[in-house]
């Protein structure tokens, strides 16, 4: 358990002339949740596919659970669980059969699998529906089943590619709680997400990726302290841009303007709040700086489609 469960160094991947992963280095520590954050198209999913040996890097080295990848990807995948971005459960089967059939791909005997399945069904909160076809399940149930399926081989390392995208808040919180249980059991998690809140809650360390590169890496609180002022005052209203020019900019270290919203970043919010408190033409929100602020500062606010 001392060797890093996963190391990637100098990873590069081209699609045609377009370089989607441009020299990525990172290493996971045993038992941590490591987050790969980035806007759409940053190269997160490609990085995961490289680490699973599903596509070959054009340069760089990957080692997963002591196995060189892609050379011994098959052996590495024996001890990895994967929650893919899009559900690919088997619609022809029941919940229980989905787990059983998937477990067979690992070469595990039916006897052993049948012994493991009740615990996994409990973990997913699906024990009472074990013999239901999966078409009738809600999005949250499908995600929980996908997570349970990823654990059928009792993996040491679990890859989660945007595991809560498209879920409602209740379902998302259940998934987060389950992932914390996995961490308690000593599993190592590699999570990609563009929900900063998710990363802040779960990850001990994150790497922010953009345009195929890692542009920042560290613990969520450390990244916030390193890259951004600790307090944020968000100001909304028609005259907000005007207010920013006249007052905001001179009383905050940094102001970002998007439409009619102003983000004021500062160490001392008191003068801003004193000015805003009595006003009826502007609304405001005072909060601590979050990982999302760091993310937006580093990757910009323009749309990524």
């Amino acid at each position, binding site marked *: 358990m001392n060797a890093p469960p996963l190391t990637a160094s100098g990873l590069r991947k081209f699609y045609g002339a377009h370089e989607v992963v441009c020299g990525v280095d990172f290493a996971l520590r045993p038992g941590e949740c490591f987050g790969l954050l980035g806007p759409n198209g940053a190269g997160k999913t490609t990085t995961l596919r490289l680490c699973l040996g599903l596509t070959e890097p054009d340069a760089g080295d990957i080692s997963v659970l002591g196995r060189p990848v892609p050379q011994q990807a098959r052996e590495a*995948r024996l001890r*990895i669980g994967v929650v*893919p971005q*899009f559900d*690919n459960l088997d619609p022809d089967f029941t919940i229980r*059969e989905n787990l059983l059939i998937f477990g*067979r*791909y690992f070469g595990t005997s039916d006897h052993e699998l049948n012994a493991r399945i009740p615990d996994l069904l409990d973990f997913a909160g699906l024990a009472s529906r074990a013999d239901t076809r999966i078409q009738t399940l809600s999005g949250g149930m499908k995600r929980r089943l996908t997570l349970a399926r990823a654990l059928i*081989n009792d993996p040491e390392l679990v890859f989660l590619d945007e595991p809560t995208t498209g879920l409602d808040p209740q379902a998302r919180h259940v998934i987060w709680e389950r992932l914390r249980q996995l961490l308690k059991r000593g599993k190592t998690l590699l999570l990609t997400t563009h929900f900063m809140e998710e990363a802040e809650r779960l990850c001990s360390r994150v790497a922010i990726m953009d345009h195929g590169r890692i542009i920042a890496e560290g613990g969520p609180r450390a990244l916030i302290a390193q890259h951004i002022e600790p307090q944020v005052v968000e100001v909304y209203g028609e005259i907000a841009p005007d207010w920013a020019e006249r007052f905001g900019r001179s009383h905050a270290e940094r102001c970002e303007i998007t439409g009619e919203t102003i983000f004021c970043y500062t160490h001392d919010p008191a003068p801003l709040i004193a000015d805003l408190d009595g006003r009826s033409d502007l609304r405001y929100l005072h909060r601590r700086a979050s990982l999302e602020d760091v993310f937006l500062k580093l990757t910009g606010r323009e749309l990524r489609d």
Partner: protein
Amino acid sequence: MTIKHWTPPQFSLRFVHVWRRNLLVWRRLAIPSMLGNLADPLLYMFGLGYGLGRMLDDVGGMSYIGFLAAGIVCSSTMMSASFEAMYSGFSRMHVQKTWDAILNAPLTLDDVMLGELVWAASKSFLSGCAVLIVATVLGLVPSPLALAVIPLIFLTGLAFSGLGLIMTALSPSYDFFMYYFTLCVTPMMLLCGVFFPLDQLPAAAQAVAQLLPLTHAVSLARPLVAGEIPPTWLLNIAVLAAYAVVSFYIALALTRRRLLQ
């Protein structure tokens, strides 16, 4: 395509689990599926065999329905393998993403493709055998030499499954498969000696027919059903085997290009 897509395949025995998965799905629907697979070939056999057969004294030295039976065994094997490798294979690859899920387990795309090839051939084997059994019950199979048709059906299934998997690897949607049926399957039905002896065709068409796999399947099945050793059996087997191996290799390279980006 790059040279990497053409690296020789490396299989593991785990391909069996892909085959078993498909078998489990099929078992749910086995009876309607078998009846559906049998209805079409039997309609041809009875409709043409008795209807048209009344007007013909003998075709190739046997009753027309007896002549037709061996051809229909082969054509129903072709149909069944093509449907499974294309429509069902495409569902699993593209629509349900079943292959993506399997590739996260310790299987490679080579294993998945081999599992699909053998599965489609297995399913077509059942279709071909069902027609052979019906023909036997009707007394159209006079010789025990017809037992040799059984492995031939499987080989024929492999050849057409491989071809079907090429189309699956290239297909953007289900509609694409119509081209293959219109341009390849239907012409083979008509040109490869299923319904009438090849020597009825002009020489040029006969030469083309010799390049098509169904011709070689029929050339083996028909004499065997009648109790004779096929005169060119070695060539016929070699052509079918070559179709199976080469088409599967091409399908694998194309699918690697499509999925392992």
